[in-house]
């Protein structure tokens, strides 16, 4: 008899592999720098290496992993809630909202930050991105009048995304001096991450995992259709709203710290599904692990490929994530042709 614990053992095995890859990635992250590769254990031998590894490279690597994990979690929740394997964390307009938040911040205070009020300095670019992303999702939810109708919700997300994107472009045209910073934000980067950012993202990830855990069974039931999920006695509307808020918080927390990193939220849940069919209570945390590893490895590559120049990590995730999805597509087409 198939034991119900079998999927748990598969998930544990995969999780262990993911943690090993993460450990390897963090070691590489600690070793990769603008001057090339250095053995991480030199931190104990050379006091000048200590601040570089512990204060710069390690928080950047840990932060990249956490941001990727937040996007992976948000992607798995989005694909479950919308029952669409093409859903990604930016679907509800959060990316455009974050961009607009940053653009507004830069337009208003960027040029003369010293003259700005103290609270704006505290809020900063990451705060503006966070507020922008959350505000965009709330506008989407208001326009779609809740989460009852998936199509209405997705359409509202598209409308909000396009509109806020247009406003951002217009503002950028009005203030050309913000364009360069905006481009950097939109391509994504882990270069600004410090331990404080890591702590904030770790708390957001922990909250996302804890909050989505009891609703994993709703995500499983939704894969049978909304009527069937309702007939199973599950609070479909309330649960979906809650999950959309978890998705928005996780996305906003990541975007606020690393900018608009493409493909991680889309590719990570796909990668988990390609390896094993697992219920969402395992799929969501594993997608977070895969997302973390993907962004961590992309960041290590971004630092090392053209060192000392730092490539935008979004370029690498687009190449890695997009390449992976292309590989899956070609395999699928190959399978269909053979059938």
């Amino acid at each position: 008899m198939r034991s119900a614990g079998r999927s748990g053992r598969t998930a544990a095995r995969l999780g262990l592999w993911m943690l090993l890859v993460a450990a390897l990635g963090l070691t590489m992250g600690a070793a990769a720098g603008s001057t090339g590769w250095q053995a991480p254990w030199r931190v104990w031998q050379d006091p000048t290496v200590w601040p570089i590894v512990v204060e710069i490279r390690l928080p950047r690597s840990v932060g990249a992993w956490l941001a990727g994990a937040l996007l992976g979690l948000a992607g798995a929740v989005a694909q479950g809630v919308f029952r669409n394997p093409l859903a990604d964390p930016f679907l509800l307009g959060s990316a455009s909202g974050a961009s607009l938040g940053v653009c507004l911040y830069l337009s208003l205070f960027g040029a003369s930050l010293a003259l700005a009020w103290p609270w704006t300095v505290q809020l900063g670019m990451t705060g503006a991105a966070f507020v922008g992303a959350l505000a965009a999702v709330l506008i989407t939810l208001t326009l779609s009048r809740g989460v009852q109708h998936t199509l209405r919700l997705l359409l509202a997300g598209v409308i909000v995304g396009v509109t806020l994107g247009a406003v951002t472009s217009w503002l950028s045209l009005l203030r050309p001096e913000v364009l360069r910073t905006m481009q950097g934000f939109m391509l994504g980067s882990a270069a600004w991450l410090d331990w404080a950012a890591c702590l904030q993202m770790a708390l957001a990830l922990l909250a996302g995992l804890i909050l989505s855990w009891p609703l994993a069974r709703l995500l499983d039931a939704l894969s049978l259709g909304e009527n069937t999920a309702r007939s199973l006695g599950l609070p479909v509307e309330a649960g979906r709203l809650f999950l959309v808020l978890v998705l928005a918080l996780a996305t906003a927390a990541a975007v606020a710290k690393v900018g608009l990193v493409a493909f991680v939220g889309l590719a990570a849940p796909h990668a988990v599904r390609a390896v094993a069919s697992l219920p969402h209570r395992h799929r969501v945390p594993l997608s977070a692990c895969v997302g973390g590893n993907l962004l961590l490895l992309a960041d290590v590559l971004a630092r090392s490929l053209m060192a000392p120049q730092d490539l935008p990590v979004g370029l690498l995730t687009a190449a890695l994530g997009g390449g992976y999805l292309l590989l899956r597509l070609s395999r699928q087409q190959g399978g269909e042709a053979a059938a």
Partner: protein
Amino acid sequence: MNPSLQTRDLCVSLGGRQVLRHLDLRIAQGRWTCIVGPNGAGKSTLLRALAGLLPYQGQVLWQEQGVRPAELTGPQRARQLAWLGQAEPVSEDLCVFDLVMLGRLPHQGWLAVPSVQDLQAVESALRAVHAWDWRDRLLGQLSGGERQRVLLARAMSVQAPLMLMDEPLSHLDPPHQADWLAQVQALKARGVTVVSVLHEISLALQADEIVLLMDGRLVHHGPSAQAQTHRAIEAAFDQRLAIHALGPHWVALLVNPPASL
């Protein structure tokens, strides 16, 4: 306490159009009742209203004592009623065992792991539809008929005293249709009330009772063996089919096919 179903002055409007009009129905417990009627008669809408999946006016009552579904909590409702919808999109990457286990959700706590009873219910349902041997396959790897059998097993695993099924025989080949009929008999023997929508009249005539709808109205409700029921069905389909006896059963045959066919 086995439920029966009852509606009082049931009306349903969808998109501003009245789909069901003032239906008064009483469905006997432990029997198989089949809802039939021409396309657009409101059959699936009636089934969804009975399951509490649609907003409606009037009353839907479960059980002899007249419990309103709205008075029960979600899990209480779900333990009373199993639902098998028509052509609902189902994820391809679910494995058969896990999918059928979802039918046990109403019996499980939010963070509980499946109990021995859950595992037994899933195994029993999968064996009943002859799907136990491919329990580890993904839904995307199954044919339409195999998939339908798995979805039936999911509904059976709820082990509810009331089972509503919308076109449960779609994609099933004749041997598996016969298996489904045997399953319904077995469910009835356990006191389960089965209500189904079927468009295949010959199969519907094997039910105990027929509910005939036309344009959202109840046209006839009676035993399937009754001649009056047969005449009502023939009239509802413009005399384009005729019901004949065949041994202990009845079959509906098309008559006067149009010249263009």
